[in-house]
């Protein structure tokens, strides 16, 4: 099949979305039942949302559907006919395609090369002029716009997401499954991508099934919704007939109000602010590629307040946090803590009571193959009472470390409650709890936090948010960097928006205009298109 007919097939002949049904699908991993007799029905040409908490079985269900791990029991019907989907190849034959949460693109190659490689039937010699013309024609047949010659590494996150979707459309898929497609996008980018997909379902050309946990996206774009909880079907229905409250209750299984988490009130934010704990002046830092990532950034965090930094990933937040934690050297500017010059040395961290919850704690805050007790002692294993002995040789006192670890494991509910277990064998939530115990049990004066609840479930998220709030009320200064705007709105006294390495906008709690924040978040990310 040559490139042109392929494109024509993708664009014209293929004008109906697929209808898909799952019937009592069960999937077990060892003793764990990940999916328990789940049934769902997706109408042809509809936009179907799959809601649920982390670990509810959403990903497992769609992975069954695309043949990654076939289910033990139950069946799938495509266009009313039962189909055995035993491998991704079977799914491809039925024109079911999946867009994953993480990008599966080759960053060093161009948009055109990535699309062509996805096709899989390349000629030995590639006639780029003809292929590019065919690809341009294909792009014209979709609502998506991308520069074919751009290198993927230079694309903004929203453009990468579009390319992932285009890859699937290029393969002529009739059912597109998206796994939390907007988790790395700005609100504006998310609206654009979902709006375009929604438009394609309105034409009847495509059926979309989207995993999400954002109610806003469900109400704005979804036709129908299926909610999973702990591997079981918790409910389903048409979007117009279910309220956000209904869906939230199905998701968490109780009448907890999650729609409007308590946001800080303006009056609360106006209380007397304390002394300046952290002052950043004109900070500059480079990213891993040597390009400027933080540009002349100024900010101040006072005692007893949480300053939230919003922004789309990749606008310098990671580099800022790394400089403040001593993981990266600044190229210019100054950082002061308690009025003293600060270079994140161990002595300074200790003197000023600086603690941190970096993102990916297993990588950034732990030594994976050391025990929980040892990891809990990383801050103070070298001072009394955990080290000491003859001739000031500072022998490690394992007994003291283990005793304290046991107390913290108890207080913070770390599972399994075994101080000698290697920390890499704990689940993500328990690693976070162990780090939390280490970082919040001391006299915290300044706390630097980055995406603290990423990948955690509802209960763990609540617990961490409560502890952050407690630390603030006890007088700590907290810098909270998060990609989750809701989290920032819920916790912060002030919100700063970071875009292209600078503070683009700032707002006090209670006076935050979400649309305004979204616009400033998008300000930097829109640039990538020009490359």
């Amino acid at each position, binding site marked *: 099949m040559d490139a042109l007919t392929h494109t024509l097939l993708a664009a014209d002949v293929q004008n109906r979305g697929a209808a898909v049904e799952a019937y009592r699908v069960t999937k077990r991993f060892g003793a764990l039942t990940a999916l328990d007799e789940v049934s769902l029905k997706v109408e042809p040409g509809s936009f179907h949302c799959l809601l649920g908490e982390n670990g509810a079985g959403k990903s497992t269900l769609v992975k069954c559907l695309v043949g990654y791990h076939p289910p033990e029991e139950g069946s799938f019907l495509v266009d009313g006919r039962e189909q055995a989907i035993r491998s*991704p*190849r079977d799914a491809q034959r039925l024109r079911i395609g999946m867009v994953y949460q993480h990008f*599966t*693109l*080759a*960053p*060093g*190659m161009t948009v055109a*090369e990535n699309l*062509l*490689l*996805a096709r*899989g039937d*390349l*000629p*030995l*010699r*590639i*006639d*780029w002029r003809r292929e590019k013309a065919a690809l341009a024609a294909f792009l014209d047949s979709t609502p998506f716009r991308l520069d074919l010659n751009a290198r993927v590494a230079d694309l903004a996150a929203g453009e990468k997401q579009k390319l992932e979707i285009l890859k699937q459309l290029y393969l002529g898929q009739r059912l597109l499954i998206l796994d939390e497609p907007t988790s790395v996008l700005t609100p504006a980018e998310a609206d654009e991508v979902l709006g375009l997909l929604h438009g394609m379902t309105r034409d009847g050309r495509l059926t979309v099934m989207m995993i999400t946990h954002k109610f806003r996206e469900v109400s704005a774009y979804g036709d129908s919704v299926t909610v999973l909880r702990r591997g079981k079907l918790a409910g389903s229905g048409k979007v117009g007939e279910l309220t956000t409250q209904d869906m939230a209750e199905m998701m968490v299984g109780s009448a907890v109000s999650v729609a409007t988490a308590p946001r800080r009130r303006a009056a609360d934010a106006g209380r007397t602010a304390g002394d300046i704990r952290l002052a950043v002046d004109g900070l500059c830092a*480079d990213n*891993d*590629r*040597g390009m400027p990532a933080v540009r002349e950034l100024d900010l101040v965090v006072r005692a007893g307040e949480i300053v939230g930094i919003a922004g789309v990933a990749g606008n310098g937040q990671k580099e800022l946090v790394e400089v403040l934690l001593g993981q*990266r*050297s600044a190229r210019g500017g100054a950082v002061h803590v308690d009025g003293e010059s600060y270079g994140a040395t161990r002595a300074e961290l200790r003197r000023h009571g600086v603690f941190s919850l970096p993102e990916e704690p297993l990588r950034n805050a732990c030594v994976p193959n050391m025990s929980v007790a040892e990891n809990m002692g990383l801050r103070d294993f070298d001072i009394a009472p955990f080290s000491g002995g003859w001739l000031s040789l500072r022998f490690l006192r394992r007994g003291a470390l283990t005793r304290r670890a046991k107390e913290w494991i108890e207080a913070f509910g770390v599972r399994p409650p075994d101080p000698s277990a290697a920390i890499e064998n704990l689940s993500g939530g328990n690693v976070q709890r162990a780090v939390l115990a280490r970082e919040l049990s001391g006299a915290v004066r300044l706390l630097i936090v980055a995406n603290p609840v990423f990948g955690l479930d509802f209960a763990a998220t609540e617990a961490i948010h409560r502890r952050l709030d407690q630390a603030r009320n006890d007088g700590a200064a907290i810098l909270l960097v998060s990609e989750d705007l809701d989290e920032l709105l819920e916790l912060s006294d002030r919100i700063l928006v970071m875009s292209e390495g600078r503070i683009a906008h700032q707002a006090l709690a209670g006076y935050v205009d979400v649309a305004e924040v979204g616009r400033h978040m998008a300000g930097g990310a829109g640039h990538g298109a020009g490359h």
Partner: protein
Amino acid sequence: MSETTDGLAFGSLALALLGGALRVSTPFLFVSLGECITEKSGRINLGLEGTLVLGAMGGYGVSLLTGSPWLGVLAAGLCGVLMGLLHGGLCSLPKVNDIAVGIALMLFGTGLAFFLGKPLIQPQAPMLPSVELGAWSDNEQVRSALRINVLLPVGLALAGLLHWAFRASRWGLALRLVGDNAAAARALGYPVVPIRIGATAAGGFLAGVGGAFLSLYYPGSWNEGLSSGQGLMAVALVIFARWSPLRCALAALLFGAAGALGPALQSQGITAGYYLFNAAPYVLTLALMAASWTPGQTLAGAPGELSFTQR
């Protein structure tokens, strides 16, 4: 008067450097192109130094036995393929590090070549022919500088071919995909491990051919001091060339010129610091690595799957 002699001396020095670059650069060229193919697939083969020496020995031996230097070149390439397959195969086992395997194979290759090559030290094998590009000139120095070996144009053409193939052939695109994002390649159904083994074998072939140049053209004999680290320097050269075959060719000429600095100065009567100038390629390697490698940064253009770009 003295200005003219200075000018003449400078001209003949430049000519000697050019001649040296054209003469010495061929092994750099072949080894770096081979390493370029291997690294584009996401693996580093540090064993090419051993492959080079083994290829030199094998090529010399077969040329001696058959009387055909071209069969020698082929045999050298096949020695390289075997070494490449060994490296590729070992690295495909779980939890095997490609750099460690490379160092082991470097020692294995040189040791094996020394062991098998003992009887080849005395006899004289038939050499590869050269091409007289300087026949138009009546200046002996120009003719000597432009007397190039046949492998050099082959290597330069190969650099052009690889540049095209990486961009516009099925093999090239698949190779780059595997080296850039193995998970994506697997998801698209490209066989990651066979492609990497194939790329390492192809890289080995070229390194072996580079070795045949050493024993069958310049210096043109087999002995244990034949290679002076060209195989290792070529690896550094690939990084300096940012994984582009065309830049590999330029860098190989630059390294060749650096290698010719000592002999060229000596031919001009400057003997002071001869050994110091002979060290020029090594100094150049160090300087280039220091210049192109800043800590805390990943290199632009580096294949995403290389073990040193993973953090």
